[in-house]
């Protein structure tokens, strides 16, 4: 044990009673704010993705005065929009034995037993309401011919509980939440601040009472006060530079909150998604995901023999011409029970293992095949039967199969072809793992409050529900659960104390100090007199993180990474060049501030990874693995949340431990074999 670790000084406030009754009991007992009093209470919501839009809309519907902020030109653009595959809900429409308990259990197990039971159970409980709510809003989920909602399967589960809208589920859900938010903006109950960036949280007498924001068009620094502040600002995957996150996705709001006293929990838990389009060259600015739903029908393989790998790389052998017997469907081989639908962390590591063994199928050796030929054949044969075709030709069967695959995944195939110029109906896709999601985030209690009173975190910005690995189609579920069905209940319990407080003033030392800090930082960046563009530093940070704190990690690399990041940060402040002025739209300035924060957070991620001497979920420590290369968890030593308190230097943060108590599930070695 490191002597820096302290037992957790903050109460997670998990309600008493049996697991299945906790949330109901809690809802029945939290304090309420009556409708008249809600009108005198202000709430700030930062971020308008699934969690932020749904929270802002719901809180405004309830009667609170809401100010919502986003850095985009419109609240409809947050990166939730890019989520492709679907959203889980324990509806059991397919009658395959699904239940609230099974969704709870799958999520706990999928998270490798590193999440809080009560939070996860609540998530499973409200999941069904999300689908009802979204359908009422007019979200056009996929339906079958009887007009009923359709489902598909996702990794790590043995039921079909994923609702979807082609490969654009995130878009449809976000537009649903955006429409609810727009309704409240139209009614004047939400004041919307587009193209605004949160620069700092203002803490007055120990409570979060507002934010400093920058108008990204005019550069004006603004003070906004409220009785509570809700951060729905997403994850920190862009610490790696290359990820499936949007270019603007950033961790600055969460990092500012951390610097103001919010603990940062489990920062090393990063999800590397197995199916992304591989890096093509040095100018690559981001990576594109190919939805996990493709693993329902796509089979992942590499050649068995090195000579075939070489032939495919140099173009003398087409992958479609390689005989079945010479292919290694390595997921089906290693994990027969789940096959291609193992959880993301397992699938990613298995791809890395094959590529490290030299079997990668593109020029850089960092790609595996995702093949739809069997699915096209299977669907085609079924459809031929459905249509009563007698002795259909191979071509006819193929054409029918292509038609069905197109109906399911058409937009994904089109996207793949646009990016790679390969036709995935004709030749297998090439894929490789990429940074996709971050399970860690601001520590929150059962009420989603951080360690700063009045400062809440929801969606990907908090750490709460996914443990060390998130299952597919659970991010959309969590974002909307937090925003629609959790925050609206729990926030009243805190705000009930504020009904007599009156408007919070934006004068006073705390606002002065925060504003002065923001201005000084902007001045320093703009007048640095350096020569190197911001992106250079971001790319270097990304390389350190990917190589030393990526899919597999070890103590030596992590220690090196901390030193390298510190050196990079010094160089940044000596030599970064930020052109332009502070009083105009200046994307380079926005980027510089975000990258400066990533360079601090990256250091904390490495520190957390170094201190967690076990392998679990997305955190794979090479020192801790079984003989056949599977992750070796240490439940005696590490069944806790590592929650970090900022002290000035990121890697000198103090760790607090929240012990994870499992009363309802038995901790087992995760096996998908």
């Amino acid at each position, binding site marked *: 044990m490191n002597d820096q670790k302290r037992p957790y000084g903050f109460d997670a406030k998990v309600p008493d009673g049996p697991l299945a009754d906790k949330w109901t009991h809690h809802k029945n007992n939290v304090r309420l704010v009556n409708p008249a009093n809600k009108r005198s209470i202000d709430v700030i919501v930062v971020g308008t993705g699934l969690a932020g839009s*749904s929270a802002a809309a719901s809180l405004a519907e309830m009667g609170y005065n809401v100010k919502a902020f986003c850095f985009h*030109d419109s609240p*409809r*653009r*947050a*990166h939730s*929009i*890019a989520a492709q595959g679907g959203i889980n809900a324990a*509806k059991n*429409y397919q009658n395959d034995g699904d239940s609230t308990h099974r969704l709870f259990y799958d999520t706990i197990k999928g998270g490798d037993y590193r999440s809080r039971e009560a939070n996860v159970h609540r998530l499973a409980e*409200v999941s069904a*309401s999300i*689908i*009802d*709510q*979204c*359908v*009422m*809003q*007019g*979200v*056009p989920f*996929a*339906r079958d*011919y009887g*007009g*009923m909602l359709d489902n598909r399967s996702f990794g790590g589960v043995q039921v079909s509980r994923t609702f979807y*809208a082609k490969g654009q589920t995130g*878009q*449809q859900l976000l*537009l649903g939440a*955006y*429409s*609810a938010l*727009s309704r409240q*903006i*139209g009614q004047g109950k939400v004041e*919307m601040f*587009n193209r605004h960036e949160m620069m700092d949280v203002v803490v007055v007498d120990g409570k979060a009472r507002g934010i400093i924001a920058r108008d990204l*068009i005019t550069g004006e620094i603004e003070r906004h006060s409220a009785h509570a502040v809700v951060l729905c600002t997403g994850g920190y995957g862009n610490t790696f530079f290359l990820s499936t996150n*949007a*270019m603007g996705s950033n961790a600055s709001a969460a990092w500012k909150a951390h610097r103001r006293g919010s603990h940062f929990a489990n920062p090393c838990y990063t999800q590397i998604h197995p199916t992304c389009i591989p890096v*093509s*060259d040095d*100018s690559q*600015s981001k990576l*594109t995901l190919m939805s996990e739903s493709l693993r329902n029908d796509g089979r992942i393989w590499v050649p068995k023999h090195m000579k075939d790998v070489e032939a495919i790389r140099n173009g003398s052998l087409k992958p479609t011409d390689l005989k079945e017997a010479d292919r290694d469907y390595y997921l089906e081989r290693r994990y027969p029970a789940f096959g291609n639908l193992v959880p993301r962390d397992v699938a990613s590591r298995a791809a890395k293992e094959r590529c490290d063994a030299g079997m990668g199928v593109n020029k850089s050796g960092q790609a595996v095949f995702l093949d739809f030929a069997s699915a096209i054949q299977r669907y085609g044969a079924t459809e031929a039967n459905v249509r009563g075709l007698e002795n259909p030709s191979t071509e006819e069967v193929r054409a029918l199969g292509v038609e069905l695959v197109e109906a399911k995944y058409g937009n994904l195939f089109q*996207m793949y072809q*646009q*990016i790679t*110029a390969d036709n995935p109906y004709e030749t297998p896709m090439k894929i490789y793992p990429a940074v996709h999601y971050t399970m860690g985030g601001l520590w929150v209690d059962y009420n989603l409050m951080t360690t700063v009173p009045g400062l809440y975190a929801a969606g990907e910005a908090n750490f709460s529900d996914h443990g060390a690995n998130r299952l597919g189609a659970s991010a959309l579920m969590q974002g909307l659960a937090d925003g*629609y*069905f959790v925050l609206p209940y729990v926030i009243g319990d805190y705000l009930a104390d504020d009904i007599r407080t009156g408007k919070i003033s934006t004068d006073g030392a705390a606002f002065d100090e925060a504003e002065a800090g923001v201005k000084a930082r902007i001045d320093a960046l703009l007048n640095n007199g350096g*020569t190197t*563009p911001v*992106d250079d530093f971001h790319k270097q940070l990304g390389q350190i993180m990917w190589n030393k704190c990526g899919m597999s990690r070890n103590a030596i690399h992590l220690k090196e990474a901390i030193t390298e990041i510190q050196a990079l940060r010094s160089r940044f402040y000596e030599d970064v*060049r930020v*052109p332009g002025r502070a009083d105009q*739209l200046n994307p*380079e300035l926005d980027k510089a501030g975000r990258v400066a924060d990533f360079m601090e957070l990256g250091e904390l991620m490495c520190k957390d990874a170094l201190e967690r001497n076990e392998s679990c979920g997305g955190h794979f420590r090479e020192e801790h693995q079984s003989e056949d290369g599977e992750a070796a968890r240490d439940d005696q030593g590490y069944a806790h949340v590592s929650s970090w308190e900022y002290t000035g230097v990121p890697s000198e943060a103090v760790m607090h431990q929240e012990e994870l108590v499992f009363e309802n599930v038995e901790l087992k070695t995760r096996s998908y074999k």
Partner: protein
Amino acid sequence: MDFTLNIWRQDGPQDAGRMVAYPVTGISDEMSFLEMIDVLNDQLVRSGDEPVAFDHDCREGICGMCSMFINGEAHGPNRLTTTCQLHMRSFKDGETITVEPWRAAAFPVIRDLVVDRTAMDRVIQSGGYVSVNTNGNTVDANALPIPKPAADEAFEAAACIGCGACVATCKNASAMLFVAAKVSQLALLPQGQPERLDRAERMVAQMDEEGFGNCTNTGACEVECPMGISLDHIARMNRDFLHAKVAKKS
């Protein structure tokens, strides 16, 4: 590959703006158009100039943020493609490429290639929703079956990414395709029925107020729409709008 980029530069809303030519060299055909602009901006910053401001975010064709008018076409030469999904293999080595912002009275330029599209948000705020509160106690999602063709067509309308290419491409700077996509999506679903006519009326009124032009059925919007949204939705909106007007008079 080497290119000459002819790019609109405008320092701020009040600046007159001008086209400026920049050479870019060593571009790979696998680069996306925006990655090529990244290369240009990197050169500009290193040489002490100001980079070209442009809107972009997801770079996978779904957020609707990117918005470049390339060689006289919204999102460039390819169909069903946003600017971020356009790759340099679609251009010829040595070509001169002209890049301008969306041009429309309702989309004032903020800087360089960045325009203000909040008018589209205000149109949605005027009625582009179903008035249902969050409470967790709505009816079960399967209580109301929706015929697959209606659900599918609603989805196709709902796929609109709100980029504004339809407006930028229209000679009248009309937003009919954008507005119709939302009106039509909700008109096709049972949940949208109670407010159907009122919605069409309010959204059209807001669209007019924002200064978008009228529709003269040239169909250019449908051609340039990266999501392939059909003109049929405009017809459906027009029917609902007329129906609303007639219903009010009688």
